[in-house]
């Protein structure tokens, strides 16, 4: 096993070319900018990968931890959210604060993607809404804001206090808020001012007359040490400064979210980005020519690693625990109790709790999955061993089989069908639960599912969901086959 890992690592590094990882957040605009950064980095002669993060704080943490060299961020987010406790006002103060963290930001890319509050044109006309403050006189309007906005320092709590809004508000996934507005399920929501849907749906943007929202100038946020480690890459990334104005960014977003001109259909952010860098900088970038098959293959590999490693460790821990629990009644209570409690913690909550000590990425997902897989294996091992008929246990004893000998020759073989059933349950659940890894950038089938939800892209969601379902079925079938292979024939008669 270790030898194979070495072979894989060596093969990967043998490619020779230096590799860098660039980050982005998962929503469309950030994804497009991320792909542009990848193309610019590769133009400087390195191999670059893009890693997608579900929110600002995890992307920022990844940059500080050197997991990525750069990602697109917004000055308002930095001042009011990520570094809110510093009370930064000017961009110069922001640059100083970043420098103390070993980070820096580029010149503004050229557009201000501020938060805004929007309602449908019909609602605005009917209630004569012009400013955010006008909402206060209509407390029955249903507000729904993106989940991040609900909790951000520059989000709903401050907005409510600034304008004295009495309206209740609930959280919603940003990409879903536009259809919800259109269908009249909600009345007002937060917008990004460069969102393509504003124009497409003819939404009314309410004026922020008290100047609550700061400027959200898009910048390239990068690590200061990049200047020494790879000045060519840095120089290339910084070309993005001043390159994209608001109209241009909105047209990119529109092409990716609503489809391009001439019924082009929705264009993947990677393609939009490739076309953009070619047009702006005269590059000859091609959207990484990942076919559907190659993407699914890569994610299948990642997903199998998540499931395989977590199951392997879970079995190594749970089998002995189950055996000891079956031997000692005093031990059985606590073991079954603790693994049972672990199982009741919602999977997403468990992941989030583990981000604290372990950070984001595959290792965290693997720990969560293995904790989740313990119960079915421990419980079935315990049940299989304690369920062996009394006269058989007695016969083994009378023959003189004791201890490990009895476990190996009699008890484990007799309990094997039950133990295997437990491992099968754990593995099938594990395949499904591992998709939540997409939430913490662990790779696998969850990545397209989460990105698809953020970008309101149903095809992308299916790209993760269908293979995940197929893998669960295959795992089930594989275990059925394994059962026929390893369960002694005498137990199947």
């Amino acid at each position, binding site marked *: 096993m270790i030898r194979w890992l070495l072979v894989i690592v060596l093969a990967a590094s043998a490619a020779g070319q230096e590799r860098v990882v660039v980050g982005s957040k998962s929503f469309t605009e950030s994804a497009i900018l991320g792909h542009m950064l990848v193309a610019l980095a590769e133009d400087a002669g390195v191999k670059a990968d893009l890693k997608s993060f579900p929110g600002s704080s995890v992307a920022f943490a990844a940059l500080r931890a050197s997991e990525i060299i750069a990602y697109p961020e917004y000055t308002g987010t930095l001042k009011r959210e990520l570094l809110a406790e510093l009370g930064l006002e000017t961009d110069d103060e922001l640059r100083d604060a970043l420098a103390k963290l070993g980070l820096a930001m580029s010149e503004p890319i050229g557009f201000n993607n501020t938060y805004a509050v929007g309602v449908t044109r019909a609602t605005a006309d009917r209630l004569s809404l012009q400013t955010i403050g006008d909402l206060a006189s209509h407390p029955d309007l249903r507000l729904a804001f993106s989940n991040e906005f609900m909790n951000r320092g520059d989000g709903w709590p401050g907005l409510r206090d600034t304008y004295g809004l009495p309206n209740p508000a609930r959280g919603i996934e940003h990409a879903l808020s536009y259809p919800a507005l259109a269908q009249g399920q909600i009345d007002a929501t937060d917008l990004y001012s460069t969102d393509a849907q504003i124009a497409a749906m003819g939404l009314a943007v309410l004026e922020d007359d008290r100047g609550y929202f700061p400027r959200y100038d898009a910048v390239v946020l990068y690590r200061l040490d990049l200047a020494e480690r790879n000045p060519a890459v840095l120089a290339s990334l910084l070309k993005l400064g001043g390159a994209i104005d608001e109209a241009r960014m909105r047209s990119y977003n529109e092409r990716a979210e609503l489809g391009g001109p001439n019924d082009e259909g929705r264009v993947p952010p990677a393609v939009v980005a490739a076309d953009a860098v070619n047009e702006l900088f005269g590059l000859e970038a091609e959207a990484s020519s990942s076919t559907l098959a190659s993407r699914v293959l890569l994610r299948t590999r990642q997903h199998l690693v998540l499931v395989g490693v977590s199951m392997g460790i879970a079995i190594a821990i749970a089998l002995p625990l189950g055996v000891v629990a079956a031997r000692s009644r005093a031990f059985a209570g606590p073991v079954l109790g603790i693994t049972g409690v672990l199982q009741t913690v919602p999977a997403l909550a468990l992941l989030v709790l583990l981000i604290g000590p372990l950070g984001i990425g595959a290792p965290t997902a693997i720990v969560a999955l293995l904790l989740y897989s313990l119960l079915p294996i421990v419980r079935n091992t315990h049940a299989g061993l304690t369920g062996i008929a009394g*006269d*058989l246990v*007695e*016969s*083994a*004893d*009378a*023959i*003189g*089989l*004791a201890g490990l*000998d009895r476990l190996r*020759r*009699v008890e484990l*073989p*007799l309990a*094997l069908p039950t133990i295997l059933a437990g491992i099968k349950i754990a593995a099938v659940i594990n395949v499904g639960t591992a998709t939540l890894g997409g939430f913490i950038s662990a790779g696998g089938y969850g990545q397209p599912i989460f990105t698809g939800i953020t970008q309101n892209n149903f095809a992308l969601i299916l790209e993760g969901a269908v293979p995940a379902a197929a893998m669960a079925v295959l795992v089930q079938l594989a275990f059925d086959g394994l059962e026929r292979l390893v369960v*002694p*024939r*005498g*137990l199947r*008669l």
Partner: protein
Amino acid sequence: MIELSRITKRFGSHAALDGVDLSIPKATTTALIGPSGCGKSTLLRVIIGLIEADEGEVTIEGRPLAAWNQRELRQRFGYAIQSGGLFPHLTARQNIELPARAHRCALKPGRIAELAELTHLDPSLLDRFSAELSGGQRQRVALVRALVLDPDILLLDEPLGALDPMVRADLQRDLKSLFDELNKTVVLVTHDLAEAAYLAPADIVLLREGRIAQRGAFAHLRAEPAEPFVTSFIEAQTERVAALVGAVP
């Protein structure tokens, strides 16, 4: 020689064995008999050490049970129970070989064939699993397994209890000749007086509620019952005894 003195075993408040004294001589067949719940199976388990008595002492060949090395002791005993106690994941042959594996010793070549012949077990059945054998065949396999390490003492707990009458009669005859031929110390638990009178005519121990009601040859029990219970236990089964061992005087 097996010696039990003042053996008491309680399950909760119920005394399954209540101060039993019993001495079983070498190379004889002794039947423990009595109605359900009289403590005969418990007594057998105490002898082999599967359950520990609350009070009293068991000695085997003059040594207290506790002083024996557990493995050494197990090797002295062959043990078979009503259902056969065969392990369903192993073939008949693997079941028979298991005691040798447990004690890390090799079987003489031909040992299994020899025992199969002795117990009238068709050798072609040896590669079948327990689920593929009839009740009688299972019992013969269990018997071979009990005998395979050539133990001094054979403990049989209702070995024929689960069999239909025809098969049972066959096996009773085979057991009888086996006991005569092997000349081992045999302790047989049964609830069937006819079986006891047939297989252990000289030494029947009749138990009632955890105590020995009477011990002796079948004829003695019948001629001089120690208490009314002995009479009623015998009379209830007289016809069947007559059928198996001939007219009762």
